[in-house]
């Protein structure tokens, strides 16, 4: 049963993964090229040794684990969409097994473990995030396994469980940096809700020791400060002035009395905003209907789960609270803590930054399914109700799959930079025929050119501190300015959007996206 669940989950994650989502997003393209560079040269695209805590990448300072994993698959399969996404697919599949053990240790029943793995294998958002090269998905898997080890460790105090949990946590952090916010919270919560015994203190000390030692390379990385500055610069509740202005206005009306300075303090409003942002992840639209408004984070045909799964979800919530209140509070505390990284920035709800909350959600749904299973044995009417529920879920799931399979790629093509990969392949075919190639900068288009064109990393490795290169080999990344460009050397290829060129200029080739829309055209200066 578990084996077939794993196979089913793996197939759902793997099938058509190269073409749906239709193309690599720039983070994936960047990961892909770094991985390509590592697999070819043992160095990243900036010429740093691959064993580094932070990859500067295109200036967004990436975590290393996904790149290492991808370098294996890119090394094996070459630079393709599938190879970049494969680590995520595999991680998502391992997470199914992890969920089996997690529910098992949490609810103390094999059957609920089985349900948890089934739910996680099918959960629309879990499937979606495993079909894209999202680093957070690898972190999620590590966190699931780390939780299993941790709970086991608290249950039967064996030191090596703590050591294992600690190491898995470290992998999670090196896979996705924001995991360092949730892991201490997660450990604290597990500690509070576990049965107390003496050996635990030693275990927690071991965890903490390994954890802190493991973080040293990250904090000593030459890119650490730059990476932090970048992360803190996103629009979030601490660096935005609206709360301060609001607080000041209200205080002014109250003539700055002591009470008003206390109750209208900006921290009050920041706190409210933080809680409000967390609660945004409990909106029905987000949970059941359309999900994260970002088209890369949700297919738009389902929320975290399908609405037909809502009865399971609410049953799980109710029965877990009724029968295992302690576990319920533990799950809820995890849920809230996992939402923290998504709730400080202002883009909410955010399915990617709160990806770990799939763990508590899947646990709740699976507990509901587990209770439904019990209902099956309690008379005819209840049996009919259960069967109707299951049939509804089945039908909606089939329809959902159909919609994702037929419409999602088309609908979301623009969000996935469709057309860039085609250009990359095209440039590679033309590279040797020209001395100068002009390419518009686009949205980090150079990553796609390098990756899909399979250009040698040596072209960029000497530019160790250039994150948005203007010149790579014969290629120049700048917008088309026709009246200047036309004066250039005759062996030039100018690439741009169709309306960058005046009427009557002879178009050499048209580069189309997967829907057949012309995204770029090229002009050969020798052949106007």
């Amino acid at each position, binding site marked *: 049963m578990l084996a077939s669940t794993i196979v089913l989950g793996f197939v759902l994650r793997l099938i058509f993964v190269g073409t749906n989502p239709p193309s690599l997003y720039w983070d994936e393209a960047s990961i892909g090229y770094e991985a390509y560079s590592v697999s070819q040269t043992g160095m990243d695209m900036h010429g740093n040794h691959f064993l580094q805590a932070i990859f500067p990448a295109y200036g967004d300072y990436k975590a290393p684990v996904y790149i290492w994993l991808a370098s294996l698959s890119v090394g094996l399969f070459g630079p393709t969409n599938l190879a970049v996404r494969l680590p995520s697919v595999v991680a998502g599949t391992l997470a199914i097994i992890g969920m089996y053990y997690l529910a098992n240790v949490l609810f103390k029943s094999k059957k609920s473990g089985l349900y948890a793995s089934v739910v996680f294998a099918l959960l629309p958002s879990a499937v979606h995030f495993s079909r894209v090269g999202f680093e957070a998905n690898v972190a999620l898997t590590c966190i699931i396994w780390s939780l299993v080890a941790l709970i086991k460790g608290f249950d039967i105090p064996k030191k090596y469980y703590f050591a294992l949990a600690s190491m898995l946590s470290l992998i999670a952090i090196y896979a996705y940096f924001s995991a360092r916010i949730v892991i201490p919270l997660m450990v604290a919560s597990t500690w509070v809700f576990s049965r107390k015994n003496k050996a635990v203190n030693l275990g927690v000390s071991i965890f903490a020791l390994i954890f802190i030692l493991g973080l040293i390379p990250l904090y000593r990385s030459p890119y650490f400060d730059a990476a932090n500055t970048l992360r803190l610069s996103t629009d979030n509740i601490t660096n935005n002035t609206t709360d301060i202005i609001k607080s000041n206005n209200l205080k002014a*009306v109250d003539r700055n009395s002591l009470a008003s300075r206390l109750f209208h303090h900006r921290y009050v409003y920041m706190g409210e905003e933080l809680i409000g942002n967390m609660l945004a992840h409990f909106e029905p639209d987000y949970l059941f209907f359309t999900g994260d408004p970002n088209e890369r984070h949700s297919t738009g045909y389902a929320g975290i789960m399908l609405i037909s799964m809502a009865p399971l979800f609410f049953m799980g919530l109710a029965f877990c609270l009724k029968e295992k209140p302690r576990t319920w509070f533990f799950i809820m505390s995890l849920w809230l803590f996992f939402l923290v990284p998504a709730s400080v920035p202002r883009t909410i709800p955010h399915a990617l930054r709160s990806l770990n909350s799939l763990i508590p959600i899947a646990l709740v749904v699976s507990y509901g399914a587990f209770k439904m299973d019990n209902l099956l044995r309690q008379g005819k009417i209840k049996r009919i109700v259960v069967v109707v529920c299951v049939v509804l879920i089945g039908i909606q799931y089939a329809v959902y799959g159909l919609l994702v399979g037929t419409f999602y790629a088309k609908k979301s093509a623009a969000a996935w930079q469709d057309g860039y990969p085609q250009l990359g392949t095209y440039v590679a075919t033309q590279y040797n025929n020209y001395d100068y190639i002009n390419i518009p900068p686009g949205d980090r288009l150079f990553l796609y050119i390098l990756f899909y064109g399979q250009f040698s990393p040596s072209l960029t490795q000497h530019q160790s501190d250039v994150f948005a290169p203007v010149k790579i080999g014969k290629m120049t990344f700048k917008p088309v300015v026709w009246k200047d460009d036309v004066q250039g050397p005759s062996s030039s290829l100018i690439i741009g959007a169709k309306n960058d060129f005046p009427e009557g200029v002879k178009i050499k080739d048209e580069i189309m996206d997967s829907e057949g829309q012309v995204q770029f055209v090229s002009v050969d200066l020798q052949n106007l």
Partner: protein
Amino acid sequence: MARKSNLIEILAITAIVFLASVVRLVRLDTLPPSLYWEEVALGYDAYSIVETGKDYHGNPYPLVAFPSFGDYKPSLYFYITAISMAILGPTDYAIRLPSALAGIIAVGLLYLISKKLGFSKKVSMLASFILSIMPMAIQFSRAAFEVNVAVTLMMAGIMCLLASQKKPSFMIAAAVFLSLSMYAYHGLRVIAPLLTLGFYVISYAKYSIKYVVIGFICAFILILPILKNVTDIQVNQRFSETSFISVSTAVQETNALREYFGNSLLSRVVFHRYWWWTGEAIANYMKNFSPNFLFMIGDENPRHGVKDFGPLYHWQALALLAGLYGMLTIKQKGVLSLFVWILVSPLATMMTKTNPHTLRMLAIAPAFALLSAWGLSVVIERVAYKKWLIGGIALIIVAEACMFGHAYAIHYPTESAPDWQYGYRQAIDYVEKNKKPNQKIYMTRDYGRPSIYALWYGKYEPKSIQDSDPSVKKDQQELLEFGQYAFALTGEYESGSLVVTAGEKGINGGKKIETITFPNGQVAFEIYEAP
């Protein structure tokens, strides 16, 4: 001993009702800062009824709905306001008073309902207290919201329904109150029957069949006018105006999907618009239970709540959670009815396009108050250090109530003034005082429905308005001219006429003679003399 505790009970509930009255009646006419156009419309039609027995369009004693601006408002609030106006005269206070009184009565009724449902005296008293200070209850009691009266009538109906378990003849009173509630607000036409059905099914064995039939017949006769007009504009105008179906993209989506799959029979079943609509309705329904909405920010309409507060207090999130926990683990009489009450209340708003919507689900307020009270009692009974806990809870409740009161009385009037159409009264008062006979007055429609303010604050004789009604220009049923007034700024004005403009737009060559500002100092209106 029993007498003594009865005395304490009576004293306590009197104190709570007194508190509710103070909270609802003080500064009623100026807090919220001004009357919204629906309130003024209610007021002027009520005035017209008192004076002439007809609404201002000239319809004698409308039974189901008043045409008003063409939105066909349910009739009951007009008649109750007519009574309060007959006593207090045509004032702003008289318009808002029925809603405030309904809010006060609801506090007392909740105590009785709670006891009848089987909750203890302490829980019932706490529930009343919570309702008396709950943000959504205060918000809708302090302005002329028809829904507030409707919900109180519904509560009276439920009280009588529960009382009929012991004295079956109360069933007739229940039928009367529940039917009346359907004349007060549209949403209750859905909620009241469903809630009654729910309460009946839960303890059907306790009701006398004979009186159930009698009650049903009574109710049927009483709502016959609504049923008779169900296809008429008087009843269905509201539905067609607010239904989410009109903004739904389900038809386009399903058609596209069917086409893609070759219009096969299966595709027409699977991609039927009804599935889509069901999904949208469920989504709408669930939005009304969104925690962010309930406890943090409320709905988007500034007339429905105070910034930084939801319809409920923040602490009620925990109290309601405790209530749900109690529901799952403790056998308590009446909890099931309460649960049904909560689930039924948003059923009317889920068919509309704006969700969540505090006003349309106001019927949920007493149920939330009661569940919060019971939730608190569940926690208090299960925890050691009772005194400290009770003290702590009391402190939190009082502190947040004070914060809400402060926000409502100090900051809300300034922040929400434009949403309450502040400035119309001041503008009309100025114009009425300074106009000359035969001088034309042009007034902007930028803030919406100016004519009703001119009618009300100018205290125009309803008789003359009724007489001129058939001949004047209208938008739907909103008057666009009467007497010296014309409600349109065309740019061409009779020389020497008064022109009331919105904001600081001004008119060509006009002489500014008066400026009316919002409480925050921004310009609401400017009055010019045309060149």
